[in-house]
């Protein structure tokens, strides 16, 4: 990338955009006019309305046999008028009266008898002046009630305190400032994120689809600069304009709120609003990768459009989608958990809220900054890829088909690396958002749903849709006998070796208690029969995970990576899919072993068999029913090795290593036979 050219393009784009009225309106007009108008004028209107109600006289009708007494009481209340009405019900319904009060029994008599009189207030709850009238009536009646209670108690000679065991006083210690801070923390991230989106919206369209529509893109492409330089300059302009819009909005919002608060009666609380300087710094710092992310995605989408209008209709849904994660901060109960720290946009919104209302430790800040930066880089990489496609960049003249009809795809023997990565990412996202949820909610069925619904079906569907030959892509061919046997022997050796590795890992990186319990819950699953557990925890992963990892992912990357990178790459992908630092290493290593088996035998079946064997060992060793039937000597041997974490004695390990090596040897001979058969 040529920085000089990037800056030349950036400067021109900024100049171009600043001469565009739409950008100026979004960047300056909206924040400088809309907020003050919305908040200040809106609040003053509300206040005016409130005062009007408070100042107005309440007009009520009095009914019942003893209305004279009632009228006397009510008229003692300020701003209260009693009306004479022929049809009070109608007058109340039509708003000429605010309430009707009726008293049937004689209060003087009930006082003597020590009984309760009934008073009925009819009012219109949807009308604020009617509500105000009820409040005033209640005040009048409460005062009268107290007097009457006092008289009654005097008659029987009991002091007033007798019926009043304690006085309760409520005092709110949360200052107006704290309350305002919480409200700000909920609303501001939402507005900020949306404003970043709005800020990037027009520049992203104008500099891509707009340029195509105006026919200037080809002029730019005819100059001796690379598409990266063009993307770099344009992206920088979109990013800067989005940031500027975001910051103008932030400033305008803060200014408006400050003005609002200074108008409030307890202006002391204004000075109490204290957002620490470092919080502001973190917010601005996090804003950078976020604006990066949003700008890059918006540009990637907009460049597909042929015209300004088409880009608008493509980008508007994205702007709406942006609202959901952004709104999470405003929903009570959502907090910045480890999972939420990784969810783009939502993580920023929640961090913003926390920074405004409380003290935040370094860990979530670093995680949010880091993950947002990763997402931003991915989005920018995607944009760069798209910018290199002439069919997209020049789509204004011969049209780009945005339809993804199956018939448009070319038949393939194996998936492309891009398809393989897409399938992996898709499954990972599904696992992340849906899988962890269903597994938490329905333990056993959750695993079944994850395996078949999240790993197997999406993989098969994507491959089928893209017209990839399933037999080839998934290595669905029978292996030689020695290949099959080799896979099983490797699994036997590896089962013991991986148990030993887990003991060692436990010493370096102890399993957290929660995770151990969770694992126990999953693998033990209480009183399920052993065959059910084997079906769900061993057979299903052996089929579904193998189809995804040793099928689609392996065949997609096979031609493009040297053998060692292939083994570790697929292994790593397998490890990542277990979404836990503690399980990643071991499952990753198992992944390498399984990848080796499928890679060398050219068939997925030995991989499935080995996977089933490894998982079965884990299920059986942790099952209480199996444990109960185990010979006592074996049980105590395993206890010492695994539960007491002493590990296996050297001769067991040596045996396992020999078994493993002979498995490898078997697989290698099967490979040689296959090669020589091919050569003949």
């Amino acid at each position: 990338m040529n920085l000089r050219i990037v800056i030349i393009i950036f400067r021109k784009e900024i100049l171009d955009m600043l001469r565009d009225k739409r950008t100026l309106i979004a960047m300056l007009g909206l924040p400088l006019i809309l907020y003050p108008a919305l908040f200040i004028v809106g609040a003053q209107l509300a206040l005016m309305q409130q005062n009007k109600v408070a100042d107005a006289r309440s007009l009520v009708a009095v009914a019942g046999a003893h209305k004279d007494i009632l009228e006397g009481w009510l008229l003692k209340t300020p701003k209260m008028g009693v009306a004479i009405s022929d049809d009070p019900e109608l007058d109340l319904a039509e708003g000429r009266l605010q309430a009707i009060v009726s008293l049937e029994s004689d209060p003087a008599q009930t006082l003597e008898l020590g009984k309760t009189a009934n008073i009925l207030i009819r009012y219109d709850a949807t009308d604020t002046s009617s509500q105000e009238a009820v409040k005033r009536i209640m005040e009048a009646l409460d005062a009268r009630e107290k007097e009457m209670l006092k008289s009654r108690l005097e008659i029987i000679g009991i002091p007033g305190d007798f019926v009043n065991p304690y006085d309760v006083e409520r005092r709110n210690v949360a200052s107006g400032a704290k309350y305002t801070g919480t409200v700000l923390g909920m609303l501001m991230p939402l507005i900020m994120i949306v404003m970043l989106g709005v800020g990037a919206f027009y520049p992203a369209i104008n500099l891509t689809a707009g340029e195509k529509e105006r026919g200037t893109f080809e002029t730019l492409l005819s100059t001796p600069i690379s598409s990266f330089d063009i993307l770099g300059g344009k992206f920088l302009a979109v990013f800067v304009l989005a940031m500027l819009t975001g910051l103008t909005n932030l400033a305008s919002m803060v200014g408006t709120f400050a003005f609002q608060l200074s108008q409030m009666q307890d202006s002391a609380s204004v000075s109490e609003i204290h957002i620490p300087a470092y919080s502001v710094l973190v917010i601005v710092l996090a804003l950078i990768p976020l604006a990066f992310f949003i700008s890059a995605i918006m540009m990637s989408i907009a460049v597909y459009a042929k015209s300004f209008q088409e880009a608008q209709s493509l980008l508007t849904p994205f702007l709406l989608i942006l609202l959901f994660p952004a709104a999470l901060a405003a929903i009570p109960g959502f907090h910045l958990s480890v999972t939420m720290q990784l969810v783009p946009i939502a993580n920023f919104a929640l961090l913003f809220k926390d920074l405004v209302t409380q003290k935040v430790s370094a860990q979530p800040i670093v995680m949010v900054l880091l993950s947002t930066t990763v997402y931003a880089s991915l989005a920018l990489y995607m944009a760069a890829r798209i910018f290199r496609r002439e069919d997209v960049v020049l789509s204004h003249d011969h049209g780009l088909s945005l339809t993804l009809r199956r018939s448009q795809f070319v038949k393939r023997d194996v998936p492309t690396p891009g398809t393989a990565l897409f399938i992996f990412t898709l499954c990972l996202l599904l696992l992340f958002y849906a899988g962890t949820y269903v597994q938490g909610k329905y333990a056993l069925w959750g695993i079944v749903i994850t395996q078949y619904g999240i790993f197997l079906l999406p993989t098969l569907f994507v491959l089928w849709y893209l017209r990839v030959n399933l037999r080839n892509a998934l290595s669905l061919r029978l292996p030689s006998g020695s290949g099959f046997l080799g896979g099983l022997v490797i699994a036997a050796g590896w089962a013991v070796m991986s148990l030993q590795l887990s003991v060692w890992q436990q010493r370096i990186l102890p399993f957290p208690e929660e995770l151990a319990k969770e694992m126990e819950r999953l693998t033990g699953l209480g009183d399920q029969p052993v065959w059910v557990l084997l079906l769900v925890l061993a057979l299903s992963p052996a089929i579904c995970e193998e189809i995804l990892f040793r099928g689609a992912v392996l065949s997609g990357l096979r031609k493009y990576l040297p053998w060692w990178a292939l083994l570790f790459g697929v292994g790593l992908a397998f490890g990542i899919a277990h979404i836990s630092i503690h399980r990643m290493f071991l499952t990753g290593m198992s992944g390498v072993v399984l990848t080796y088996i499928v890679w060398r035998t050219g068939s997925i079946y030995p991989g499935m068999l080995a996977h089933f064997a490894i998982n079965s060992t884990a299920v059986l060793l942790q099952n209480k029913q199996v444990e109960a039937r185990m010979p006592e000597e074996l049980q105590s041997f395993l206890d010492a090795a695994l539960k007491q974490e002493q590990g296996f004695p050297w001769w067991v390990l040596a045996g396992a290593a020999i078994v493993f090596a002979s498995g490898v040897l078997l697989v290698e001979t099967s490979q040689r036979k296959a090669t020589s058969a091919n050569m003949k």
Partner: protein
Amino acid sequence: MIRAQDLRKEFAGPRGVPVVAVKSATFSVYPGEIFGLLGPNGAGKTTLLRMLATIIRPTSGHCWIAEDRTDVWPQRVRQHVGFLSGNTKLYGRLKARELLLYFGRLYGMTDDAIVQRTEELATTLDMKPFMERRCDTLSTGQVQKVSIARVLLHDPPVLILDEPTLGLDIMTSAAIRDFILDAKRRQHSIIFSTHYMTEAEMLCDRVGLIYSGEIMAMDTKQGLYADTGTDNLHDVFLAYVARHAAART
């Protein structure tokens, strides 16, 4: 010079069936020569010129501009090329002078060199009255003059001009033709497309006739007249289209 070898371009069509825009084009344009590409709308002229200018990549075949292969050294090639077509429009919100400054910088020229060259071009192309006006306020002829100035700014040895006089008045067309002839005198290689046969007769040393993505004939004007027994390019073209249709049936 320009050299094209078996250039072919396919675009994705409906139902995955590719549409062939240029079938197989092989030709050369030498320094000091004007090569005219004649053909009706949709014949593939623009696609062919865009491949030469590295705007699009050929599906197969190669071309060389000043000994650099376009698919290997696209940026170096663009440094030596001035490309003008109906799709190379100007930034409406920039003033003519700002626009030339911008493109000069993209071509790696120093600001001093740009100012000096802009002055020369503004004088000879009679652009001074509108140099400070925004491009979206200029007339068609004024816009085309600014476009020509953009193409000539870095004085490229190869000019690829796609219908440079389309929709222009007589005066502006004449001015642009003068520029093309001047470039020829200065030993530039020029390829230009047009469907004005008279213009081709006035300018071209050699002519290629393109029809349905295929170059039907390529020769000097005199060679083409002799081959068809006619005395103007209009009749030459019709004669070749008839021959082409006959060969098909």
